[in-house]
């Protein structure tokens, strides 16, 4: 008998249809992965099972949990089930824990709320599960507060809470999106181990197809609130039928071909750069300590070259970007663009800045919501001595919008009228409009859905051909860096530990950190092309 059986589940919020006739089955010991683009209804499906939908939701159809109809259960019965029979792990470990309660209390609460055992036993059990998820109480006492743990450790606490009573069903909604690849790999190992060990059924939500392929026994692909295709993993990977599924997989291993670039003219020279952040004072009179975010970094970027920079979150990538842009002073070393320092005196050298532009990660945060597109894309004109005006300005805007695949008519719109992918195109238009010699991409595609990401990568490759771009592409996503750069640098804790030709580094990493990074990154199993079958 199946553990969870969702039949024809439809859900609407305030009359807006969110889910349409979703069907899904999970057997004990089985991992079912739900995947699909952002907004496709993955989280809503999970919340419906928990009956924790937002206010104003109405659900029809049937959700059978262990033979019980969840949609008909009274709230108090649902409370008995949550935590005891169904555990859930959420995406954001930073906010999923109550900041003012100790981790011990929070894990014990799951046990105590269901009166599963007396307090002392519960405490013992809490230690046990925390140890099981890799937080041995000797090193991580129960009295710690969430803010005293790293993101990965917090996620372990959330998992411990979810499995404390050995629920029969575990739901994990993007449990690793906020974590590093290496941490992500550890968490997945942990979850897989637990599911096997306890014989739990698991509903796993992720948009990362590589993860899906690696972990799940069964895959369901969602789009616009519908399950478009569902099949056992192996079967789906080899014989996917729905065009959307195909598109999704194709996009996630999308490769682009960069035009050749052969120049050996150095453009950007970074030599021995050090950037320290002052730590908060530890005592009133002591000198404040220093945190070294960039540690003696040196490299050269040649004209027409596409350089990648990879590394875990917090290793100093963005700090280096800001230093190159001359937004912040450096404590040692120097950065020259075209032979000119980017930072002179105590302010940025705007004459040099004119030759650089940047594209940021967050397509939603990088535009002033109150300005129209024409004003947004022309903001870098401020750097020019004689910014174009009138029809010349209009032409430039039109040219740029066309170049990034938008229409010149879009120039009168506000940013909220665009999708995430379109916004990123506008960001690229903004970077290109003053024809900079160098563009910095700081995680420019990380926030995008795979299909959109593929389009943006294509766009970049096209632009390389038309505008002969030179760029520094920063990302934690190895597969992207691999396809979009000629050369790559690997950064760890502020240092460049390895650099070389991209293919070379990826196929034959020299530094153990690079090796670990590549090993931890989930990969889609190599598939035979469909038509070759």
């Amino acid at each position, binding site marked *: 008998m199946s553990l969870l059986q969702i039949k024809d589940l439809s859900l609407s919020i305030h009359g807006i249809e969110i889910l349409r006739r979703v069907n899904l089955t999970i057997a004990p010991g089985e991992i079912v992965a739900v995947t699909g683009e952002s907004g496709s209804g993955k989280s809503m499906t999970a919340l419906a099972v928990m009956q924790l939908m937002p206010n104003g939701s109405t659900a029809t159809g049937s959700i059978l949990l262990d033979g019980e109809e969840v949609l008909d259960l009274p709230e108090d019965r649902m409370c008995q089930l949550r935590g005891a029979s169904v555990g859930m792990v959420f995406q954001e470990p930073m906010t999923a824990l109550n900041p003012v309660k100790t981790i011990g209390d929070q894990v014990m609460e799951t046990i105590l709320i269901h009166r599963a055992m007396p307090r002392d036993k519960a405490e013992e059990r809490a230690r046990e599960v925390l140890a099981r998820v890799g937080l041995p109480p000797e090193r991580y006492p129960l009295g710690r507060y969430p803010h005293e743990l790293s993101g990965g450790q917090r996620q372990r606490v959330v998992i411990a809470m979810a499995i404390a009573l050995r629920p029969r069903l575990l739901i994990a909604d993007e449990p690793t999106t906020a974590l590093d690849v290496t941490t992500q790999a550890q968490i997945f190992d942990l979850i897989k181990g637990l599911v096997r060990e306890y014989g739990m059924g698991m509903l796993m939500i992720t948009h990362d197809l590589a993860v899906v392929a690696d972990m799940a026994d069964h895959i369901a692909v969602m789009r616009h609130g519908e399950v478009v295709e569902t099949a056992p993993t192996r079967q789906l990977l080899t014989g996917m039928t729905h065009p959307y599924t195909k598109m999704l997989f194709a996009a996630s291993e999308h490769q682009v071909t960069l035009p050749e670039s052969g120049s050996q003219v150095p453009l950007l020279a970074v030599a021995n750069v050090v950037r320290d952040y002052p730590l908060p004072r530890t005592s009133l009179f002591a000198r404040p300590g220093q945190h070294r975010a960039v540690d003696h970094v040196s490299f050269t970027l040649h004209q027409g070259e596409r350089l990648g920079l990879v590394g875990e979150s917090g290793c100093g990538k963005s700090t280096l970007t800001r230093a190159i842009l001359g937004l912040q002073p450096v404590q040692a070393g120097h950065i020259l663009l075209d032979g000119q320092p980017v930072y002179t005196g105590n302010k940025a050298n705007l004459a040099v800045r004119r030759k650089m532009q940047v594209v940021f*990660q967050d397509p939603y945060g990088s535009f*002033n919501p109150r300005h129209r597109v024409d004003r947004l894309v022309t903001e870098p004109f401020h750097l020019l001595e004689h910014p174009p005006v009138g029809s010349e300005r209009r032409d430039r805007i039109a040219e740029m919008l066309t170049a990034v695949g938008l229409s010149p008519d879009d120039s009168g719109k506000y940013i909220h009228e665009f999708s995430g992918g379109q916004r990123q195109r506008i960001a690229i238009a903004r970077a290109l409009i003053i024809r900079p010699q160098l563009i910095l991409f700081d995680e420019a595609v990380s926030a995008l859905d795979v299909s959109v990401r593929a389009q943006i990568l294509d766009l970049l490759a096209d632009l390389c051909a038309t505008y002969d771009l030179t760029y520094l592409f920063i990302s934690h996503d190895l597969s992207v860096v691999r396809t979009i750069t000629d050369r790559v640098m690997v950064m760890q804790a502020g240092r460049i530990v390895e650099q070389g030709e991209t293919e070379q580094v990826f196929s034959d990493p020299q530094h153990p950190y690079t090796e670990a990074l590549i090993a931890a990154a989930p990969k889609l199993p190599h598939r035979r092309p469909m038509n070759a079958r």
Partner: protein
Amino acid sequence: MSRNLILGAGLSSLVVLAALLSFVWTPYDYAALNIPAKLQTPNAQHWFGTDHFGRDMFSMIMVGARTSIAVALLAVGIGMSLGVPLGLAAAARKGSWLDELIMRGNDLVFAFPSLVIAILITAVFGAGAVNAIIAIGIFNIPVFARITRGAALSLWEREFIMAARVAGKGAARISAEHILPNVANLLIVQGTIQFSLGILAEAGLSYVGLGAQPPTPSWGRMLADAQTMVSFAPHLALIPGFAIILTVLGLNLMGDGLRDWLDPRIRVARS
């Protein structure tokens, strides 16, 4: 638009209309004494009755609205015109001595019991509307400085600010071009609330005799004048009291409504 916003805007505009109308028309001359006709309860000739000097209460309430609005509005103006630039500057130079100075200055103003200082200020420079405005205005400065700084700080973390910096724009220009328009909503909402607090403060100061001086009518002073007479002429206290309550209520409702209406998070969810 929410019910709150409509109700609040309705009440507030009623008061503002009454105030504006009073410039061109009041049923009677608000300053004309008619002692034989004193202490009339509301009737057909005098809709709100007459006061202890036989003045028409309705006319006084209308002109009193003008006083309240003028004092509160100017006090908010002082608070905004000084507080907002200070807040913007503090946020732009976060962590610097300037920021520290501004924030400590704010704390200092907050540390003073406002009414005592208002009384002191008026004791030093004399009672009157102008000094009431200054006294109330001073305490508005840190409110706006703080709220502006808070909102501006989170904006400075946003990538579009980084983009503007990359475009070579300086802190002042970014503050004016990007930060200010994006905190404007917040300031409008807070401004409405401070406005209503200003009305209350003006009433309080006038009540203790430190607001606008006679013969300019003021709701607070009408209440003070009425105090000994409530037991036999309750309308003298009830009418100005209700005027204050309704105005403050209207502004608060409008502030709440505006907050909901202007909050993009809520607006997006609604559309």
